[in-house]
């Protein structure tokens, strides 16, 4: 059976899974979980097959608005894989995390919109028609809105979901403009690669696409909806929003650019800069957050920034016809799309089990959970290392690709932009380590900071199983990169077609020829690292804990309490205080034996809450003037219609008479 049929079948499965909880006899949602997971398995296998075989398969439909092609090629398959990995695991995770028959939990609507979201995103990756693409985009945006608003009895959740809705629709407007221009350029809505010479319009189409899809991907000035929306939604939904829905923005940009004959070089440089800024800004904000889900959301901004850097580098390579830059940039970007999907969904699942066990999103209330939830702590450990880009986990390798690309561009003619991007990547790596050492240290290590930790325990296998699979993948993707290289080449070929057109092959050099030997040696060293780690642990002989272990020595201090520990806020003090948007109020201590003191730390998003939101507020106030045109009389509206019609007729008359 062709892959496309299987994937459409999977989309059907998800639709059924969405509706099933409303059918009376199967209210619990177990059947719907099985159907959804089955759909994801089907789609995953089909996408994997499409990617490995390298053949695109398609079906053509005739709708009332013209021919619509649904096609799965390497690029679609590359994004379908993480979607169905996370969606399948997410619905299994959700079975215990958010049961469908909770008295007040909106479990059924959650399942419905979850299924709808997965179906919409699946179709989104398949559709090759601008108009229908926009419809799927809208279905995705709206179902994500309802998912974010699941706990709509909390006012801050409603606020977050409204901001999300406004932002996504602003983005959709810009995307619509881009798609209309694209249709103008192609002479129709069906998407076919444009051959022939480049036009000035191409740059505008792509710029609009970057802006519009950038809203979805959370690139810098357009990111402000993201932290609140991801923090307020249920955790398995956050996982899919962060690791897949943000990537639809990446997919959109890549798809549009793959249709155009050329990419202007300045746009590559601009995206590289924007990505670098987003990455540093995102991770810097991440290390100041108290809410661990907000922290993870900011880290998504960082990682999407890194992906954007890769795309920018790839576009530069495509514009300057540099095979190495194109291969390393696009290769790094796609590989990071996968890796981020894996470790970020693992982190969000982990945050779900934390929330499930403790009921709080405040890091400062937690602590010492590694002793109480040992399995969760063990499973999140690889994720924390991977997101900090530390070897031997997968996050390191995709950043390694980017470093190689940036150094290649340093040698090959773009020293300034490469130097700055390099600085951004180094800072990002360093600050990510701060942010996630803080996360892991505050939540899992030390001793409990509040009573929220008292009765915690590991979740059941239904929640741990998906996490264990993802944790295994963070290591496996890090160590089994070599077989993936030809697959990446296949995708890069679509993104960087040679100037002679797609049929002439790929502009990019095969990754295996650039990186093969280096990666082999790198993997040897990583294997050695693991072996040495194992040897070292064996030498220490495990922890022979004595029957009555002593308290922490702490320089012999007699009565340590948990409140004396470093908190998450104090841990990140050095960097967080330098962040614009962080204000700290401490009274200076003036006399001996001071009384109780207060300390207040406030973190707002300097760009989002500090600049963009007030700016929109002012704009909205200006636009209120037009409110007068809408007084609520039906007669007046009919008059508007008539006037508009009259104006059109007049215009036609005038044009016919004078301009013809």
């Amino acid at each position, binding site marked *: 059976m062709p892959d496309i049929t299987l994937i459409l079948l999977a989309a059907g499965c998800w639709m059924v899974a969405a509706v099933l909880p409303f059918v009376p006899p199967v209210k619990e949602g177990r059947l719907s979980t099985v159907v959804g997971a089955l759909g994801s398995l089907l789609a995953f296998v089909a996408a994997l097959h499409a990617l490995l075989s390298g053949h695109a398969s398609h079906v053509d439909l005739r709708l009332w608005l013209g021919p619509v092609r649904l096609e799965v090629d390497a690029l679609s398959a590359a994004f379908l894989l993480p979607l169905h990995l996370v969606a399948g695991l997410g619905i299994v995770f959700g079975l215990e995390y958010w049961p469908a028959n909770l008295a007040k939990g909106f479990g059924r609507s959650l399942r419905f919109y979850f299924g709808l979201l997965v179906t919409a995103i699946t179709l989104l990756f398949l559709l090759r028609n601008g108009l229908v693409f926009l419809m799927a985009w809208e279905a995705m945006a709206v179902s994500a809105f309802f998912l974010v608003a699941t706990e709509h009895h909390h006012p801050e959740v409603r606020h977050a979901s409204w901001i999300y809705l406004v932002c996504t629709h602003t983005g959709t407007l810009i995307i619509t403009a881009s798609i209309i221009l694209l249709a103008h350029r192609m002479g129709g809505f069906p998407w076919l690669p444009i051959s022939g010479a480049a036009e000035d319009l191409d740059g505008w189409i792509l710029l609009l696409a970057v802006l519009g899809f950038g809203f979805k991907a959370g690139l810098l000035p357009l990111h402000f909806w993201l932290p609140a929306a991801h923090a307020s939604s249920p955790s398995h939904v956050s996982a899919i929003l962060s690791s897949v829905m943000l990537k639809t923005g990446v997919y959109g940009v890549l798809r549009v650019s793959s249709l155009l004959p050329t990419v202007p070089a300045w746009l590559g440089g601009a995206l590289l800069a924007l990505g670098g800024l987003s990455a540093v800004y995102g991770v810097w904000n991440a290390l100041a957050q108290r809410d661990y889900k907000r922290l993870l959301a900011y880290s998504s901004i960082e990682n999407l920034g890194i992906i954007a850097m890769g795309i920018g580098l790839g576009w530069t390579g495509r514009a300057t016809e540099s095979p190495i830059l194109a291969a390393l940039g696009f290769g790094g970007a796609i590989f990071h799309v996968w890796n981020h999907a894996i470790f970020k969904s693992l982190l969000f699942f982990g945050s779900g089990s934390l929330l499930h066990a403790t009921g709080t999103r405040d890091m400062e209330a937690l602590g*010492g959970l*590694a002793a109480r939830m040992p399995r969760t*702590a063990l499973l999140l450990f690889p994720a924390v*290392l991977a997101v*900090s880009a*530390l*070897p031997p986990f997968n996050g*390191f390798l995709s*950043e*390694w690709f980017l*470093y*190689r690309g940036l*150094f290649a561009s*340093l*040698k090959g003619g773009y*020293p*300034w932009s490469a130097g700055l991007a*390099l600085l951004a990547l*180094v800072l990002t*790596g*360093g600050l990510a*380590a*701060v942010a996630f*050492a*803080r996360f*892991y*240290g505050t939540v*899992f*290590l*030390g001793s409990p900071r509040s009573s929220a930790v008292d009765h915690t325990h590991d979740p059941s296998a239904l929640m741990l199983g998906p996490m264990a699979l993802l944790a295994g993948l963070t290591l496996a993707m890090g160590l089994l990169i070599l077989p993936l290289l030809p697959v990446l080449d296949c995708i890069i070929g679509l993104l960087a077609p040679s100037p002679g057109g797609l049929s002439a092959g790929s502009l990019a050099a095969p990754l295996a020829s650039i990186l093969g030997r*280096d990666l082999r*040696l*790198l993997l*040897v*060293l990583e294997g*050695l*690292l693991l072996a*040495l*780690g194992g040897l*070292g*642990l064996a*030498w*220490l002989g495990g922890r022979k804990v*004595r029957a009555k*272990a*002593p*308290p*922490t*020595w*702490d*320089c012999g201090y007699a009565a*340590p309490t*948990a409140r*004396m*520990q*470093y908190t998450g806020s104090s*841990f*990140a*003090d*050095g960097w967080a205080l330098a962040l614009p948007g962080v204000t700290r109020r401490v009274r200076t201590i003036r006399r001996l034996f001071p009384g109780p003191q207060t300390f207040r730390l406030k973190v707002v998003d300097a760009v989002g809450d500090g600049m963009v939101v007030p700016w929109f507020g002012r704009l909205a106030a200006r636009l209120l003037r037009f409110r007068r045109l809408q007084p609520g009389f039906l007669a007046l509206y009919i008059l508007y219609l008539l006037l508009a019609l009259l104006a059109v007729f007049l215009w036609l008359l005038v044009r016919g008479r004078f301009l013809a």
Partner: protein
Amino acid sequence: MSQPLLSTALNLLLHALAVLLLPPLIPGLIAKVKARMAGRTGPPVLQLYYDLAKLSRKEAVFSRTTTWIFLAGPVGTVAAVLVASLMVPFGHTPAPISFEGDVILFAYLLGLARFLTVLSALDTGSAFEGMGAAREVTFSALAEPALFFGFAALAKATGSLSLAPMLVGHGLTPQAQGMGTAAHLSGPLILILAGWSIVYLAENARIPVDDPNTHLELTMIHEVMVLDHSGRPFALVLYGASLKLVVLGALLVDLLLPRLAHGWMNWLMFLAGLGGLALAVGLVESMTARFRMTKVPQFLLAGVLASAFAFLLLLV
């Protein structure tokens, strides 16, 4: 054919021996220099070997708040730095493993070591150790750009992204530029040396950034993170610290060494260079006081700027 193979094998053996056995000597040398400068006899040069031998026989005590993460710190540090050492050439002897991009693995392995040390410090739940960990991550995020700008400058100068050619074949020394005397060290090289020296002092927790000799001062960074380690884990901590002194020291020493005719001369030259570095560190520690905490970021920033200027000089 057999001749190069033999010498490669010999070099590999020497490299492994140097990495495994040499490190504890360096802190001993530094301590000796400091003692002499202060007019004391000081502990024997081999003191750290004795300490390690003793610690590895002693029982370890684990606090009741700690978990397995507490062991990951010492083990991970030693493993990561040992693996990193395989990519560093010792003088003009080629590194055992060398490939394009190994420099990034090198830097991130050091990052891994630091990350695990920080986590194992936080695992104790102690106020002191949390403080040390917070300082460590704050400062090292500043030290990393200094290291990387140096790498970027050398990569630009050599057109390679592998430690071995970058460090020994950078062509910035006077001999390579045909200038003859050491008085004409080129500008970028001086700047990289300056920047990396600061990184070296900071990463190895030496004065003026940190003081490796005291535990109880509130100004400590690295030492305070390992307060609760004892027995074999503490032996690994001490060994890892000395290993870092050698591996990062090799970066500095390699930049300056001239190429000599014979392999054994290169080895001797490298060992002499390491000894000289230990002497220099000892002298710096004897002559300067530790900075106040607020000054440390400025000091590190100076390192970043020095490396960044080296990079800029090579760009224009």
